[in-house]
């Protein structure tokens, strides 16, 4: 079919389901930047993209799987990790990336991520942390800062949020990093490392949600980016315990953990399979 007007092309078009564009993300939303950093990392990773799968849960961030021109899985809310786990176990040669939101991965799906980290299953997990449930209109999440306003905490959140890097590290993750969408190059490089890392790799990506979170906390998208610039400190190798998210005190970014430990599949093969000689 001949197009009436040639639309301008984008270097990542080959990796995007362009027929689904325009996307749903709001002006000022940070997800798109995190998404293109992820695609750029894939594009330049040298990996066989025919053996690469993108898995998402549900949420604005979860739309990523549907926009990626790769084999992709848009799962139910909270279940991206177990879907990805099943896929990896069935076909260990696949490169499996999970791209999803903070609510999806740490609230409704929180149980799964700690067990995936504990097993050190070879997945690359990108969590877009916008401090709330963006898609459903900005409700309190397990990542919402104390006292922040959301539609379900109109007087401020009385609870303490998770420190995501510390949580996954304590659970057993062997690669842990945190960046913001302002730190696009570091983020892209970090995704590349995570893709090549053997074992459970986790990257938290801080991203503004002006529609859900920003509006109620008097933070316009640029204000959030300013925080990302002025109140962050890159500290590779920092103890994840220092990574508590508090922009008043300052937020550490960087690659916090990169360790080697046998992966889930290696341990399984070693422990649960009969040695060749013993097999019938």
């Amino acid at each position, binding site marked *: 079919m001949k197009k009436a007007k040639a639309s301008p092309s984008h270097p990542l078009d080959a990796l995007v389901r362009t027929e689904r564009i325009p996307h749903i993300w709001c002006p000022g939303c940070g997800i798109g930047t995190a998404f293109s950093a992820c695609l750029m990392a894939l594009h330049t990773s040298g990996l066989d993209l025919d053996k690469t799968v993108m898995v998402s849960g*549900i949420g604005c961030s979860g739309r990523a799987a549907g926009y990626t021109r790769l084999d992709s899985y*848009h799962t*139910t*809310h*909270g279940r991206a990790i177990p879907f990805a786990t099943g896929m990896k176990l069935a076909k260990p040669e696949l490169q499996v990336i999970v791209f999803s939101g903070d609510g999806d991965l740490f*609230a*409704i799906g*929180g149980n799964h991520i700690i067990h995936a980290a504990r097993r050190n299953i070879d997945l690359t997990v990108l969590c877009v942390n916008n401090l709330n*449930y963006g898609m*459903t*209109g900005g*409700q*309190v999440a*397990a990542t919402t800062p104390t006292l922040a306003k959301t*539609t*379900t*905490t*109109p*007087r401020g959140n009385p609870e303490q949020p998770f420190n995501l890097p510390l949580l996954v590290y304590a659970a057993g993750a062997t690669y842990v990093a945190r960046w913001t969408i302002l730190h696009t190059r570091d983020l892209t490089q970090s995704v590349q490392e995570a893709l090549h890392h053997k074992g459970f790799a986790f990257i938290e990506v801080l991203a503004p949600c002006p529609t859900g979170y920003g509006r109620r906390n008097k933070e316009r998208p640029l204000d959030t980016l300013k925080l990302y610039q002025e109140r962050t400190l890159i500290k590779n190798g920092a103890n994840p315990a220092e990574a508590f998210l508090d922009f008043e005190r300052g937020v550490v970014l960087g690659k916090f953990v990169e360790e080697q430990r046998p992966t889930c599949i290696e341990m399984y093969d070693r422990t649960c399979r009969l040695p060749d000689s013993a097999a019938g």
Partner: protein
Amino acid sequence: MGKRVGMEVSIAAAEVVGLCDVDVIAAYPITPQTHIVEHLSELVAEGHLDAEFVPVESEHSAMSTCVGAAAAGARTFTSTSSQGYALMAEICYIASSLRLPIVMAVANRALSAPINIWNDHADMMMSRDTGWIQTVAENGQEVVDLLLHAYRVAEDPRVLLPVIVNLDGFTLSHMIEPIWLPDKEEVDRYLPPYKPKLRLDPRNPMTFGPVGMPEVYTEAKKAQDEAMNGALPVIIEAWGEFEKQFGRAYRPVETYKTDGAEILFLTMGSISETAMTAVDKMRAEGKKVGLVRLRLWRPFPAKELVDVLKRAKAVAVVDRAMAFSTRSGPLCVEVKAALYDHGVSPYVQNFIAGLGGRDVTVEDFEAMAAKTGDGLSKGLPMAYEIVNVRE
């Protein structure tokens, strides 16, 4: 005195729950239910409602929290839709089996896959056998009235069962409608303070939910079945009291222009209002068509339904969900069973319509009536059809 307001139906639902002195609200957001619980969190935050609002981390936790709170003697509320219902289903069985009078609004939405946030009755049908009483609203006023009725029925010592009030997602939940909101005094007059009969109490220790060995499990289920059947007269009685106080009447099975009708539609939910417009039009053209609406889904009012349907030559059952491979929608399966049980056999034609937000129009009802009339007059086999499928 209550007041007449123009209000989004979800907000009105939250307002009336707020007037019911609920103690604990546990909720997780999901479209199209979210506005209900968001507004409740505002009522609590603004001091209009003295309740604990718990923004839990999933629907499974929402229902678990309600079960815990209800077991401690609290009046509870939650709301969900679709996938959220699916996730909480495990605990929904627990709530009814423990005889905890929890009230929940379900803004009905299609189930995945494919992912679809729009209205149909898949979630309502999924909850069919969980042992909850279920009523179905057709407009905003009914949502408000049925929620108030739900607490009264659920907590009645002769019932003690949880209640779902179903309202269609978007087509009802997101509409702004004129609604008569009762005031606190009117609510208090209709709804007595909750006096839990079964509750955890340190002075009288009790165990909830222990193992039921094969020796007792069957008896427990039979008792539940009897409780559900026994709820029917109480539900009707509570609607009678409601009519006396508020002047609006509800019945398990409601009719519209059924006198002399040869073909009767059977519908549930907001689609019934479109059906009424269609019936008006067809009646004006001299066609003998009428409408029956099921207000009470559980306990299933089989006898009341048959009493109405038996007067017609043909029944066109409109289902809003699938029951794969049964060649009937889930509603029609039960209608046919009820007719058979009562020895009545009108011509029954089943239509599946309005899945995942597909619009159902007056013209669709006209076409369904024409097909049913045709099948009846030509003596065609009773049929099952998913309407408006693009081949």
